């Protein structure tokens, strides 16, 4: 079976699993809301300050929520040793990884779809004119987060204290992504919104580097 088809079947399986309970998705969204709410108590920002600090807050919330959400991605397979079954299937290891990356990308995007409008309302940031550009920045940032996060979830699944280990491995690696995503979002939240090419290029570069690396190294992640 070719890789795209296998990945699509595995994606369908991940989505079916998640939408039976929706527990991962709802927990992620609630966690994001908690971070957004705590920011208001911690800093008590004015409208101008929310515009200034909002992008940082938004991405910190996504990165923290993501680093928690990505944890069960591989750990879930261990309960019934289902990863062994996937390994035995006549498909490439990259298909297994790609299916999970796509599923995590969809979960994260759905969470953002809820969190961004709520953030806009709570902090009075108008997003009427920038919807498509904002979606581009969010998508590029989310690809980087879910690609590295899925790979590190495969790594941390074999370790003790994996719930603590995953954010520890993931967040320092994501520093360039955080800087790029925050700056690109900040450029959209100003009075004259503009798509900052430099930061979008950095985000795209981050995505390409780590997607390529995971494609090259996926055999070592999935192997017995």
């Amino acid at each position, binding site marked *: 079976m070719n890789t795209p088809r296998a990945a699509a079947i595995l994606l369908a399986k991940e989505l079916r699993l998640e939408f039976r309970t929706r527990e991962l998705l709802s927990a992620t969204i609630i966690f994001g809301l908690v971070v957004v709410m705590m920011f208001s108590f911690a800093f008590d920002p004015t409208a101008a300050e929310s515009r200034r600090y909002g992008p940082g807050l938004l991405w910190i919330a996504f990165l923290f929520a993501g680093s928690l959400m990505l944890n069960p991605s591989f750990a879930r397979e261990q309960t019934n040793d289902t990863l062994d079954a996937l390994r035995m299937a006549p498909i490439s290891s990259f298909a297994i990884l790609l299916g999970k990356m796509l599923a995590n990308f969809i979960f994260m995007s759905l969470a953002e779809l809820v969190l961004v409008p709520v953030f806009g309302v709570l902090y009075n940031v108008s997003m009427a004119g920038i919807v498509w550009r904002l979606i581009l920045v969010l998508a590029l940032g989310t690809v980087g987060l879910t690609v*590295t996060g899925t*790979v*590190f979830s495969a*790594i*941390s699944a*074999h*370790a*003790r*204290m*994996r719930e603590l*280990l995953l954010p*520890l*491995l993931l967040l*320092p*690696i994501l*520093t*360039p992504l955080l*800087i*790029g995503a925050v*700056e690109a979002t900040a450029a959209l939240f100003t009075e004259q919104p503009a798509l900052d090419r*430099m*930061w979008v290029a*950095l985000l795209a*570069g*981050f995505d390409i*580097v*780590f997607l390529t*690396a995971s494609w090259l*190294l996926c055999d*070592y*992640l999935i*192997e017995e």
Partner: protein
Amino acid sequence: MTGRIASRIAAAALIFFAGYAALFIAPDEKTMHVIQRIFYFHVPSWIAMFCAFTVVFVANVAYLATRNAKWDWLGVAGAETGVVCCTIGLITGPLWAKPVWGIWWTWDARLTTTFILWLLYICYLLLRGLIDDPEKKSTLSAVFGIFAFLDVPLVYVSNRLWRTQHPQPVILGGSGSGLDPTMSKVLLVCTLAVVGVMIVVLMDRYRLERLRHEFEELQIEVESRIAEAPAIARERG
């Protein structure tokens, strides 16, 4: 054995001479005076760190390609030595910055990059400690090490675009840059000394990892022989 002793004596002599050269041979700096002499150990510790982390990257790639445990030992030896060099750099940096810049720390490109580098390689060592299966530990930490190394240029570029305060490269920074000839000679001696000590420590750490591995193998051997002993006794008796 004699080689190891000789290399140690050479490294120790070199580092003592480097200390003497940095304090007494190097000329006084015009504005910073004696404070500037920390430069002769600050910069070499970064160079040694980059050498050590490059060794880690090469070892990680080689391990995944060959699955020879020797590369894994080299990886952990390089990561530990590199973290030590990085810590020396992170301590000498603020000591120098406080009297000269007036601040201990600034979130400038090079400072931030090395700080993140330090965190990444500590995470690499932490990850190794948290995986019990030895084969998995070697493979997965090698994958993480490669990801961490790939992240370094991205961290540097993103921080460079973000803001920068650290002095532009003084030695190879194009026109207007350059060191006094005596200063560059002292810097060269200090770099050789620190890198030399780093290599000696790294090789020792590698040897320790090899001995640990051999010890574990012997332990397994002993246990299996103890388990076999009653069966052999029955056969004979």
